């Protein structure tokens, strides 16, 4: 096996997982929507991991990027006249708009917050999340707190049946694709100069700076990438799948917390981590809500504390340690 393929081996378990999820979802009755939910969590974890995992910084306002991406797609669907002429072409327009808006927001946030470290950074990012949300509500931007409901526009643009298929099937496939793309980008970063720089700064930022690593540049790259993925994830999973946007919902902090849990559970900074984290978190939540409805949070809260205390490196972190020296080592990073 030549060096090239060897570099991309770790991608295989990740892609295999997504493909298996797709197969199960498509073929087992009643599983598709669950797979959709799991795909969302995996994609969220993969995208968040690009920044949190690789730099160690906690962006507590991450959901703002999901939110702004949702608005991007929503605006494309509601503000463009003559929707029928565009048909399915609206989707790439919406995605592009979402991506652009996400990147712009991340540049704005980055310029302000990335000068700060640790807890200050976390608080600053919360500030951006909340500030942005109240700006939208206060200045009544994009319909303010009333939000937008656009199923009708989707029906008009795509035709009823296609719209329905998009809302219940194709959007979830999109999410799997986003998750796979995010994994690919994570791997590319990990194996490149970016990855080395980020590992150095995660271990000890001051030492890295002294060694001449341009920490700011690499932090920004990771931040913008992570934000961009969040934006398209929001555009797909929250606009195409859920044809409405209400500001309090798309800026809710609990999504950021879920992203943190997924990344931590799976193993921050690893490639396979978010997949494992997303699956374990999503499946446990789902079955808990069926078997013990009303008690999920009561059970999850102490479990999270235990994981943080006893297993801070996450599932894949522990896996990596066990596999050191075996032939499977190159598959799991």
């Amino acid at each position: 096996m030549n060096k090239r393929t060897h570099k991309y081996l770790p991608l295989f378990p990740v892609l295999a997982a997504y493909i298996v999820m797709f197969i199960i979802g498509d073929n087992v009755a009643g599983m598709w929507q669950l797979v959709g939910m799991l795909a969302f969590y995996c994609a969220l974890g993969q995208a968040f991991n690009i920044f949190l995992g690789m730099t160690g910084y906690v962006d507590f306002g991450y959901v703002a990027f999901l939110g702004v991406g949702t608005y991007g797609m929503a605006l494309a669907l509601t503000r463009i006249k003559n929707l029928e002429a565009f048909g399915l072409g609206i989707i790439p327009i919406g995605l592009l708009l979402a991506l652009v808006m996400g990147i712009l927001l991340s540049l704005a946030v980055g310029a302000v917050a990335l000068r700060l470290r640790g807890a200050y950074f976390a608080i600053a990012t919360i500030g951006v999340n909340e500030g942005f949300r109240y700006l939208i509500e206060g200045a009544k931007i994009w319909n303010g707190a009333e939000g937008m409901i656009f199923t009708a526009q989707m029906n008009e643009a795509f035709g009823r049946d296609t719209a329905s298929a998009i809302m219940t099937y194709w959007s979830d496939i999109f999410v799997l694709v986003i998750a796979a793309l995010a994994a690919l980008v994570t791997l590319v970063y990990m194996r490149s100069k970016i990855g080395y720089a980020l590992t150095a700064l995660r271990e000890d930022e001051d030492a890295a700076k002294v060694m001449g690593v341009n920490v700011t540049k690499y932090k920004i790259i990771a931040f913008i990438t992570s934000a961009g993925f969040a934006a398209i994830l929001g555009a797909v999973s929250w606009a195409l799948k859920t044809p409405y946007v209400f500001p309090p919902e798309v800026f809710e902090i609990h999504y950021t917390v879920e992203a943190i849990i997924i990344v931590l559970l799976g193993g921050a900074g690893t490639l396979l981590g978010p997949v494992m984290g997303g699956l374990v978190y999503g499946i446990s939540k789902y079955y808990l809500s069926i078997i013990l409805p009303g008690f999920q949070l009561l059970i999850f809260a102490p479990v999270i504390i235990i994981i943080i205390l006893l297993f801070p490196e996450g599932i894949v972190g522990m896996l990596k340690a066990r596999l050191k020296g075996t032939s499977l080592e190159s598959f799991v990073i």
Partner: protein
Amino acid sequence: MFLEQLGGNLIQGLVLGAIYGMATMGLSLIFGVLKVVNVGHGAFVMVGAFTTLWVFNALGLNPIFALPCAFGLGMALGLFFYYTTIRRLIKAPELASLLATFAMGVLLEEIVRLGFGSEFRGYNWVAGKIDLGITVLPLPKLYASIGSALIALGLYFWFKRTRAGNAMRSVVEDSEGARVCGVNVGWAYALSFALGIGLTLMSGVLLTMFIPVGINPYMGGPYTLKAFVIAVLGGLSSPYGAFFGGLVFGLIENGSYTLFALIPGVEPFALTRFLSFVMLLVILLIRPTGLLRAK
């Protein structure tokens, strides 16, 4: 007319700000000594609120009596969470402590929900009011405000004058040096955390004196966010800074409402929130030690 509104709002803002400030003191104390951000802050405020409810309804007592109860309960909770969780997270990356404190908050919310139900409760302590012309101030609000100031003052003297207080200050300055001087650093950490939580629970009591309704397990969220802004205003590590930060916050939030209300076509209330977060960002960038010198 505008000046009347502004004046009235500023007075109310000052009164509320004292309470907000006191509510944030616990957060700043914990961060100052342990460098841990308590993301579950609001949940502890909520527990304080429920304590007041219980004292008022079950024991039939004036909410002032809830203060020592809340403080005692807070110290107990603080010590419990310190020794089970926080102790191991002091040197860990902030991700761990952020998530752990968040989980603590969620745990409290769920326990309270299962114990008390998710109903929205309140109590009615009729104690009279003062009419100031430009605004009306119910006496419980005033008591709460004065109470906050007294507690802040009490904390100041405790830090300056008592051995335990001095020990804690030395730990903040230089934990190694303190250890060398014979200070039991571990115990100082535990006490700080417990004290911080105790303060936070007491602030829940005072808060209900200002807003005695709408008490429910999930009420803490907005207070956590406010506390972050105020803590930053006052300098994240300084409890006194937090108190003054609260006053400033109250003034600006209420005062700016009157100004925003002059702009047509906007929602003034949401904009005051927006403004508070802009303040947060500006201060973090320009003066992270807060508006006052830290101590």
